[in-house]
């Protein structure tokens, strides 16, 4: 079996938006999106001692190689980085097209995603990729089991849990409740350097430059502004009458 895990390299620390491009400033230090570590961990758990191949796939700048190396150090077998200046600024439509093109070549039985990107808060990519691959998709997987040719997921929703079954190949986005990602061991870190690592251009994945980056995007950032601030905040110390003070406040706001 083959499992592909899509991962993102995200800015570390206090991310900023570059006012000139209105894009996230990706020049500083970065790290593996921690939600994607759950997806890598789940792939390694499903693999166990079997001969299943785990390939990690990312779209990003050359620096994204650091995050892929971390996934290799955790135990993934191979990495694919789609990196091309013409892909910078890709929105959902363009990103899903690029990732799907690379995944099409891999033809993995199972494609895994983490539950969101910690930089953009995006939590939708898997469904677009699944649609392009024409595969079933399940998100918010709190438990995953894979057996011969099919999978079973416990999906968490606002209303409880659904058990969802699907044949493979399929796309699954795991929640961060599914596992506790391992830390790479020293041996893993050393070993990662020798593992196969492919860097692909747009031409390599077969996507036209017109379909990538800003030309291939259907959304745009128009401007940035300060979020509205809250009104006057009040703070009181409990002198024994705080409960009454809260009731008075709620009454004033017509909330009781």
């Amino acid at each position, binding site marked *: 079996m083959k499992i592909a895990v899509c991962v993102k390299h995200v800015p570390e620390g206090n991310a900023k938006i570059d006012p000139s491009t209105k894009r996230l400033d990706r020049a500083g230090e970065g790290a593996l999106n921690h*939600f994607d570590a759950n997806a890598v961990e789940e792939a390694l758990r499903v693999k166990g001692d079997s001969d299943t191949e785990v390939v990690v796939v990312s779209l990003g700048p050359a620096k994204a190689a650091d995050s892929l190396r971390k996934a290799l150090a955790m135990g993934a077998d191979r990495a694919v980085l789609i990196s091309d200046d013409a892909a910078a600024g890709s*929105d*959902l*439509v363009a990103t*899903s097209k690029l990732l799907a093109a690379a995944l099409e070549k891999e033809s993995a039985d199972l494609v895994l995603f983490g539950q969101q990107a*910690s930089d*953009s808060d995006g*939590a*939708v*990519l898997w*469904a*677009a*990729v*699944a*649609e392009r691959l*024409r595969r*079933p*998709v*399940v*998100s918010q997987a709190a438990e995953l089991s894979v057996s011969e040719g099919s999978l*079973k997921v416990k*999906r*968490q*929703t*606002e*209303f*409880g*849990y*659904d*058990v*969802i*079954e699907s044949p493979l190949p399929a796309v699954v986005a795991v929640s961060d409740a599914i596992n506790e990602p391992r830390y790479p061991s020293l041996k893993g870190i050393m070993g990662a350097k020798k593992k196969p690592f492919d860097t692909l251009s747009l031409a390599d994945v077969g996507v036209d430059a017109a379909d990538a980056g800003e030309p291939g*995007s*259907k*959304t*745009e*950032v*128009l*401007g940035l*502004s*300060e*979020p*509205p601030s*809250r*009104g006057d*905040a*009040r*703070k*009181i*110390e*409990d002198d024994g009458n*705080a*409960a*009454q*003070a*809260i*009731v008075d406040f*709620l009454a004033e*706001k017509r*909330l009781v």
Partner: protein
Amino acid sequence: MSIVVFLEQHGNELQKGSLGVLTKAASLGDPDVAAVIVGENAKALASEAGRFGAGKVFVAEDEALHQALPQPRVDVLAKIVAEHGYETVLIANSVLAADVASGLAARLDAGLNWDLVDLTRDLVGKRPALQDSVLVDVGWKSTPRIALFRAGSFDANATAGGEPEIVEVSVELSEHSAKATITGQEQEQSAGASIEDADVIVAGGRGLGAPENFSLAEELARTLGGAVGATRAVVDAGWYPYSAQIGQTGKVVSPKLYIALGISGAIQHKVGMQSSNVIVSINKDANAPIFEFSDLGVVGDVHEIVPKLTELIKQRKG
């Protein structure tokens, strides 16, 4: 600009978040606002959609839509958008709806802006970013446009709208849309009211001291007709179910009233609740960050204040 709103139903109830988005759509000045309702008894829910501003309601009751799975819904929406030429598709976020929106974007090669908290009449979306420290204006370069709104962004208000025109839609499933099936369900007993739809949320954190003290939050929530939420720390500690978790890794809520009990207000929690209308917090630590974004902050002991508060509200309600 013609707008269609996907309305999510659960157990024969249209979700409040969806009706909020429909209310918003009806306020944008477009006379042609339509809604889509799918699943069991979809047709019976059409009148309600009319009251919230839909002039036309597309319904699909096909058995393939009875399960809460995204891909068959993508098939229905793609067909409606293509056949009727809708330029704008508005969707309230949920686990199900996010996957519908994203699948639809790929199917139609359409732009999707997500996590929006507002949309202007000239179709500029407002998206808070970087832990809500900046507001990003986003737009679409082509049609159809797809917008996914953060839960609780808009109040659901019934208008004077009359009976909508009902259009039945036949469903043609894509091969890959029919593959996943729901084979079982588990409800979490303690989850109670869905926190994403609640007008009042009483949330508890580490400061409650022990799992059994969540009864303080539950009792206050019951008195106010609200739901109970929890921080990641207490969910991780096993004090409360994950389904109640509010924050970056849980649910994002914006009730009319949010009462935080023993919650410090770490960024992980803040992003999940800071767009609540009114925030009241009680915490022993006068330096807790939660006080920076509370409308009323009370420095004090939750164990002393909350029982009194619950009693006073009960008395007031008679």
